């Protein structure tokens, strides 16, 4: 799946996170999912693979910064930055 519409980025990220964290768990787009303990040790790799496949990007060593991945808002910013949109 490739997301091309810019407006889809946030909702696509949110859908993935909600699936991983649980449909019955509430969190806001600005909430730090790592700090809240909402994800387990496999999550970082799952997230990387999801981002690469969904948004057609390559996550490099230099991209590995918790600030890029900690909130829905930050993830959206990261994707926009990587794709230059």
């Amino acid at each position, binding site marked *: 799946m490739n997301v091309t519409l810019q407006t889809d980025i946030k909702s696509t990220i949110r859908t*993935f996170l909600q*699936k*991983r*964290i*649980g*449909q019955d*768990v509430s969190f806001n787009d600005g909430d730090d999912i790592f700090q809240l303990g909402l994800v*387990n*040790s*496999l999550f*970082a*790799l*799952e*997230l990387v*693979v*999801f981002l*690469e*496949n969904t948004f057609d990007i390559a996550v490099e*060593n*230099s991209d*590995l910064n918790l600030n890029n991945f900690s909130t829905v808002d930050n993830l959206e910013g990261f994707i926009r930055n990587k794709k230059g949109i």
Partner: protein
Amino acid sequence: MNLELTTAQQALKEEFITFVRTELEPYANDYDKQGAIPRSLIEKLGAAGYLGATIPTAYGGRGMDQVSYGLLNEEIGRACSSTRSLITVHSSLTAETILRWGSQEQKEQWLPLLASGQQLAAFGLSEPGAGSDTNGITTAYEEKDGQYVLTGVKKWITFSQIANLFLIAAQGDKGITTFLVPRDTPGLRVVPLEGILGTRASLLGEIHLEQCAVPAANILGRMGWGLQQIVNTALDNGRYSVACGSLGIARACLESSIQYSKQRHQSGRPIKEHQLIKQKITNMVTEVKAATLLCRNAGWLRDKKDPDSFIQTTLAKYHASRMANAVAAEAVQLHGALGCHDSFSIQRYFRDAKVMEIIEGSTEIQQILIADHSIASLSSIL
């Protein structure tokens, strides 16, 4: 989901079966008794491309897909878990992890050497005081004059007795980081470990790092991301290898049990005619088939680069390793005294199966991961 093998995968499977039948199966019990696989076998594995099975051809590997690689682990594991252990630590844990996260320079430096088998790699995570609790590692790194100095002990390291390259996880001021440490680094020595229950020919050792200095260019991945990035990638790769290897053990036990049930007579008829033996064989077949589907599914998802591949690989490893134990125990029972003697392979399968539940994340660690995923989203697992 299509779990049917392609023509190319089927052809590879036949190739693996032929290699195993001629080069490995007749000698596996001897290797177990000797406590080592010979260098000549490693050279043959390298020549066949089995030590770089999934490494791209550009780096000298065979460029196999993950399903094919699973078949390789299954067939090698069916004959000799110690040899499968070499493929796990060398290819899955180390080479594939360098391929995924290594710098271009690291990939060019190491992958051709590893893919050909000219150099062997081992994975240094476990310590005397840190197994499942990877956060508890105490091997330390310290930055000194632009280099990183490593000090500590790694224990239970498969094939460390002969490995040329070690992937070492260490703790420091920037968090857990992983380093590529060549064997000839001053201050590195390996103490052989003997007396292991299973995979006895896998040349285990203890790595002692005493002020081992490596350049910053030897950091694999990002500083401080050693666990989330490198160790988790390596263990995910390793779990797939171990899952398929466990399946191989169980298949060997099942095949031997069926063969033996035709030959062995009890109360005037072959034991295959006894209802309790039919029950055992039925249970074994069902378990092996279920594990086969889980392993193929994991391979298929890995080839698709699906985010669900991680948990499905965990599920495959969890089930296949436990199943291998159950099937091996039944096989010992069915073979009776013969199953308990080292003239026959069954006792080796039984010992090797237990190791599968401990390496690359114990059964209990897998239970935590699978339960967490299931509680969050059962549909993503089922």
